[in-house]
């Protein structure tokens, strides 16, 4: 029986419940970027967003036993991150003594559009995304097709195998080969990241 993404997360959660932190670490690696983006939408400060997501993961690990497995782990950690971010704003507003209304009511929070005042982050993200897309485009046709059907269309290996008319094992190998190339490109990007930034910064 194949393990779906939701089941995979639940499997990791079960291991985390049994005290296996390393399983939890894989969930952190998987969802950290998305959650930082979420927290950033609230606080508009990257450092604070990172802190809040760190807190959220710590809270979730400490209360992992209370996670009911009828929802997905991502939904749960997302909710924790949103609440942590809101609580931060409440406490910050109190501290700043600019509280004019009852902000404990959720509807008083308006999620404003992300400030585009983080050019460095945007530069990093777009560069990395470009590198990933370039790597994808540079793949052989078969590999590229398999990976595209998987990542953009969300097809299962079996469905991809039907579409491209090849065994499931071949699909699995092709997707892996594509990811291997992307993995190398990301590693190269990280290596050269510092020097590239130095050249760009005035």
């Amino acid at each position, binding site marked *: 029986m194949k393990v779906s993404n939701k089941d995979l997360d639940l499997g990791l959660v079960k291991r985390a419940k049994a005290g296996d932190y390393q399983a939890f670490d894989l969930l*952190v690696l998987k969802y*950290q*970027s998305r959650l930082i983006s979420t927290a950033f939408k609230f606080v508009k400060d990257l450092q604070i967003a990172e802190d809040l997501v760190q807190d959220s993961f710590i809270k979730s690990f400490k209360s992992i036993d209370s996670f009911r497995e009828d929802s997905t782990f991502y939904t749960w950690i997302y909710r924790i991150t949103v609440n942590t971010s809101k609580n931060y704003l409440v406490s910050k507003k109190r501290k700043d003594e600019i509280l004019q209304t009852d902000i404990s009511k959720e509807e008083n929070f308006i999620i404003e559009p992300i400030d585009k005042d983080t050019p460095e982050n945007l530069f990093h993200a777009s560069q990395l995304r470009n590198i*990933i897309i370039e790597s994808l485009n540079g793949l052989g046709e078969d590999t590229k097709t398999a990976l595209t059907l998987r990542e953009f269309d969300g097809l299962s290996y079996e469905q991809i195998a039907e579409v491209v008319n090849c065994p499931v094992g071949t699909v699995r190998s092709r997707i892996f080969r594509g990811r291997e190339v992307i993995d190398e490109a990301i590693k190269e990007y990280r290596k050269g990241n510092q020097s590239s930034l130095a050249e760009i910064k005035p």
Partner: protein
Amino acid sequence: MIKNKIMKEKISALADGELSDFETRRILSEISSNPEYREFWKNIHQGKEALENEESEFLDIDISNRVSFGLDKVQLKDPEQIKKHKYPQASYILASLFGFCAVIIYSLIPPPIESFSDIASQRIVDAIDSPQGIEVLNNSVSGLGILQDFKSNQKGTLANYRVPNSNKTFKVSLYPIKEVNKIGVGEATRISYIKSKNGTYVVSVSGNISTEKKNQILQNANFFAEKIN
């Protein structure tokens, strides 16, 4: 190298939820214990995030270390550490073997013969600490009148004494001759040598008592030593 590729292919399938339950269980511990696999796992999800979400602007941020430190967990990421942990079973076997050899060797070595110094020291300790302390001390320092121990605390071969009805105190120590530098020799210190079958020892007496009394104590110490030799 081939194993590495096979593992990474499985990690790739795992990230898509396309791995059997049995394989999943096996591979999870591999990912966690191998930083290269862990990074591959991270990069797969980074790639997915980049392709799925065009607005994602924090692709290359990694707070996993901070989370693990926040929870007092230690992550294995340093490639040097990988080398050290590459063959953990071998380390355990070597450690076990070493421990086993140590036990065997230790069991073959005859128990050390208690030295004169140890015996003498213990006698002094016993003399001071035991209920019969005063009596033993009186015997050891006969001719000096009644002595009381000034302090019960003494470090093995060193004992402090006080003469009743006066504020005079003195110190007696006993060391193997090679440890003679441990004796704080001052002008008022009197020393004597005790020869035993276990070697030569130095007895010293210092304090604000007369030289005559110090000599008497040294003689008594010699006598005491002969009794226990």
